């Protein structure tokens, strides 16, 4: 069953086209990867999906709902979450608190209740803590829960972003280059983590430069070049697609 569908997406900044007439659909429960050289429009695609950019044309539908005109937080409320290529960790909080923010949509307490710290608030806090520790454990960060987020090394920050996204109990997780900057061991850990997420029934949209990782775990792959769809299919199909080879290795091969 299709969970995410993009139809004729367009995005241009001034005269520069970042994404042109792009259509694709993601099936529930799969790992769907988007690859392409730098500047192919991958992050632009992510930012349109999350409401950070408004598409110049076309539409994105998620679980049957048109996302047009929705603000980022409303899109998040549909069950979409994401991680960031340039880390967007809350450095002013502890690791646990970062993840607790992820539980935002699963809880209700507003300013007034919080100010009075009613018993319901204390109960809810306990629940949030539990959920967050669970997400941290899944990402192998539970031992760092009380550290300042700013004191974590890069690889763990990447996993922290995933834990935070998980805490929001998403149906759909968009990951922007989760393996970038990681060493080999960390990359393996990351691959395992992504697979665990899939096992939990989360649909994953993955942007990644590490071809090994992409080809190993993806169900389907979309190749972007200069904002246009070059190819789409299983890893094997894509690897053998002449257009893709041309785009990656150049004209003469």
């Amino acid at each position: 069953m299709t969970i995410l569908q993009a139809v004729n997406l367009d995005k241009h900044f001034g005269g520069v086209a970042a994404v042109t007439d792009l259509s694709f659909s993601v099936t529930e429960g799969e790992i769907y990867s988007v690859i392409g050289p730098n500047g192919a429009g991958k992050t632009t695609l992510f930012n349109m999906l999350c409401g950070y950019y408004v598409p110049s044309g076309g539409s994105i539908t998620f679980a049957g709902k048109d996302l047009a005109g929705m603000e980022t937080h409303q899109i998040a409320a549909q069950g979409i979450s994401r991680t960031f290529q340039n880390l967007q960790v809350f450095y002013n909080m502890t690791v646990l608190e970062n993840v607790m923010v992820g539980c935002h949509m699963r809880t209700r307490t507003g300013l007034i209740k919080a100010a009075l710290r009613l018993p319901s608030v204390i109960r809810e806090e306990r629940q949030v803590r539990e959920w967050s520790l669970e997400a941290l454990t899944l990402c192998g960060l539970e031992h760092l829960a009380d550290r300042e987020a700013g004191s974590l090394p890069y690889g763990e920050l990447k996993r922290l972003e995933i834990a935070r996204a998980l805490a929001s109990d998403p149906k759909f997780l968009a990951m922007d280059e989760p393996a970038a900057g990681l060493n080999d061991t960390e990359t393996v850990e990351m691959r395992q983590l992504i697979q665990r997420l899939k096992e939990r029934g989360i649909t994953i949209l993955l942007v990644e430069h590490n071809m090994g990782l992409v080809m190993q775990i993806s169900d389907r792959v979309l190749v972007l070049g200069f904002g246009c769809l070059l190819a789409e299919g299983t890893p094997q199909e894509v690897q053998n697609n002449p257009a893709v080879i041309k785009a990656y290795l150049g004209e003469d091969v």
Partner: protein
Amino acid sequence: MLSEVKLMFDQIIQFLATGLSIGSTYALVGLGFAIIYNASGVVNFAQGEFVMLGAMSVVGLLGAGVPYPLALLVAIAIVTLVGFSLNKFAIEPARGASVVATIIITIGASILLRGAALLIWGKDIFSMPAFTGDEPIQIGAATLVPQNLWIMGITVILVLGVRYFFDKTLIGKAILACSCNKTAAGLVGINVKLMLLTSYGLSAAIGAVAGLLIAPIAFTSFDAGTMLGLKGFAAAILGGMGSSMGAVAGGLVLGVLESLGAGLISSGYKDAIAFVIILAVLFFKPSGLFGFKSVDRV
């Protein structure tokens, strides 16, 4: 009926002329804000104090018997030195401080400079002779004093000069490079520290000139800089922070708004009118009239 229209028209001409003259001083102060902001990302709330120090130095030097033209030059030099020291002793050591922290530092500097001026010159209000006399000049329907013309003329020259400096000279371009990316500028061999120092000096000097120009009309005292500083800040924001020419335009617009507001609507509410319009502009253009919106990469 016709004569009434004519009268109204004449009045508006006078308001515009006055507004442009007031606005020119705001423009110069705003220009100072923009130059420092461009080079270091700091909004210098002590900018108004440069204006005050310029005028007070002239008064002090005249009192000590220094001839007028020389006093003007020495005053600019003194204030430039103050600008250098502000950068050296307050901004440089606080590198990496948050935006609010730098705001507090520069506000602290402005209080300190005011305190120093109080100790040196006392609390009196001082007058300063006009550059070329007080005899009113009739220009069309507007009456101005020669000092108004000096203000507008020197503002035009300074603005063109600053523009030339940043567009055409190597140092100017180097400062702009620092404002875009300090690390990169450092890597290509630009002495970032020196460029910062230059821009603080330049901006202090422009502030001092504004002080010399306005004092013969509006007098000066140790606390004369605060209000001008605020107006200059408003001008810089209205134009779009970081755009020098925007700050100049912002200053002129602010001056004309005030003058028209005072003349046509209500003199008591003229500042409020000006601020309401600034807020309205920001509402529709959150980065000012000539500022550009930067998009964060995520």
